[in-house]
């Protein structure tokens, strides 16, 4: 075991080496895709070079960049709404045991409905502009954030609650500085799930009915059998998904730095 941890320390010591260790395989995969597809005449599998060229063309000259912002803005709006509501209700429901006991079966039932199922209902009823898409994303992301917040509040050490009540800390301060902070690791875990789900629902919503956005771009080009454009949009979404989750990991590490520090101190 000590040999193993020594080796680990060595690996950590050189950032260049660890970068190579983490990236050689992805780079080989991309290179393989590039060279294996080079000069491809296949209708279904255009070469990576043409895909990227089309992607660049539509980003710089076409509508793709504005579509991307529209999609991301819908996602961000939905996420913000779900975070505000999910955390607020989660803290309340988690704090009051009776409320939690009474609501849990209802919440579990509502949560079990696959969010994609309501997409046709919402879009047919409310139209194809931004509001229904934001609604769908917010509703879907609400559940993981709410349930994780409830779990986070429940997992709080009883001493914290006792101390807060012994010092008669006012409710508003108690909710903001004690409950919220104690539940934050769980809340962040909930938001991490929500970010991934939001992307999926954004795509489904825009495939089902839209006149703008990334999903619309992909779907419209599919209808026209423009395979290269379809691939380009899909590649862009994959890249965005990776970027969003990478950014979120950074935000999480920053927001929870105090938590990780105290975890390490306990070791």
């Amino acid at each position, binding site marked *: 075991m000590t040999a193993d941890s020594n080796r680990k320390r060595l690996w950590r010591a050189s950032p260049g080496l660890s970068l190579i260790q983490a990236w050689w395989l992805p780079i080989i995969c991309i290179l393989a895709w590039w060279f294996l597809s080079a000069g491809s005449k296949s209708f279904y599998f255009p070469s990576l070079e043409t895909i990227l060229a089309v992607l660049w063309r539509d980003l710089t000259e076409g509508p793709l960049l504005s579509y991307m912002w529209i999609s991301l803005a819908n996602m961000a709006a939905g996420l913000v709404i779900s975070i505000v509501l999910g955390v607020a209700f989660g803290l309340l429901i988690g704090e009051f045991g009776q409320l939690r006991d009474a609501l849990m079966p209802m919440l579990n039932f509502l949560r079990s409905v696959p969010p994609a*199922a309501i997409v046709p209902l919402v879009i047919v009823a409310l139209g194809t502009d931004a509001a229904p898409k934001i609604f769908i994303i917010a509703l879907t992301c609400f559940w993981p954030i709410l349930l994780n917040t409830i779990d986070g509040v429940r997992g709080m050490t009883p001493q914290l609650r006792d101390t807060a009540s012994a010092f008669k800390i006012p409710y508003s301060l108690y909710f903001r500085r004690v409950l919220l902070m104690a539940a934050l690791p769980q809340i962040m875990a909930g938001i991490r799930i929500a970010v991934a789900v939001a992307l999926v629902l954004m795509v489904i919503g825009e*495939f089902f009915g839209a006149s703008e956005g990334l999903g619309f771009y992909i779907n419209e080009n599919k209808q026209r059998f423009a395979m290269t454009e379809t691939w380009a949009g899909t590649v862009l979404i994959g890249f965005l998904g990776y970027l969003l*989750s990478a950014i979120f990991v950074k935000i999480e590490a920053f927001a929870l730095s105090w938590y990780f520090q105290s975890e390490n101190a306990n070791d």
Partner: protein
Amino acid sequence: MSKLLWQVFVVVIVLLGWFAGNHFNVFNRDVIPPMTDVAYQFIAAWARPEFLPAIWSTLSDALMGIFFAAVLAVPLGLLIGSLRAVEIATRTLLDFGRAFPVVALLPIFVLLIGANSAMKIVTIAIACFFPILLQTIYGVRRQEPVIVDTVRSFRIPHHLRFFRVLLPSALPYIATGIRIAATVSILVAVGTEVIMPVPGVGRQISVASINDEVALAFAYVIYAGFLGVILTTLWEIAEERMLPWARRTR
């Protein structure tokens, strides 16, 4: 007992609110249909010839997708998890795969494979592949150092180590992965059916919505919710049977 009373109270309040909302015309009937209409369609749906095939199509395709995902992901996860260099090398790829919204591939799959059950199963399998793979890797890596050292000092042969040590200790984590996959499979199955003309519950919701049969669409949405519950419950029973010795990890 009072807990159950409160729970019933909440359900009654919600149903009353729904009823009153329609009765006093607060809700638009085309958006939220009357509760009684939905209740009627909920029962009447059974008489429709497309009802049972749709339910069965969604359920069986979800199961097939999970099956193929598990068959591929578990051995691969055991392999990646036990070789540290491979684990580090594949980490970025796995992060990418996990973050990728598989439904975005649907337009390509429809052109490649066509709008049919096979296409749906492929999509579900890819979506379920990553949670199972990641949990398997995690399970292998979470082995107790004492056990690893014991296996090494007794020079236990490779195949024994694999089947008698690695697999049993990773199984609870694999089970968690499959439980996550069960939820994902229904989400992706319904999502695929909603967008693409493939048979299933999602297709029925789409068709009913477009035909302005909102009450019927609501009934199908509730059935779609049940499908997720059924699949998760089935898996929990199977888990209890197969892994009685393993405490649930979540």
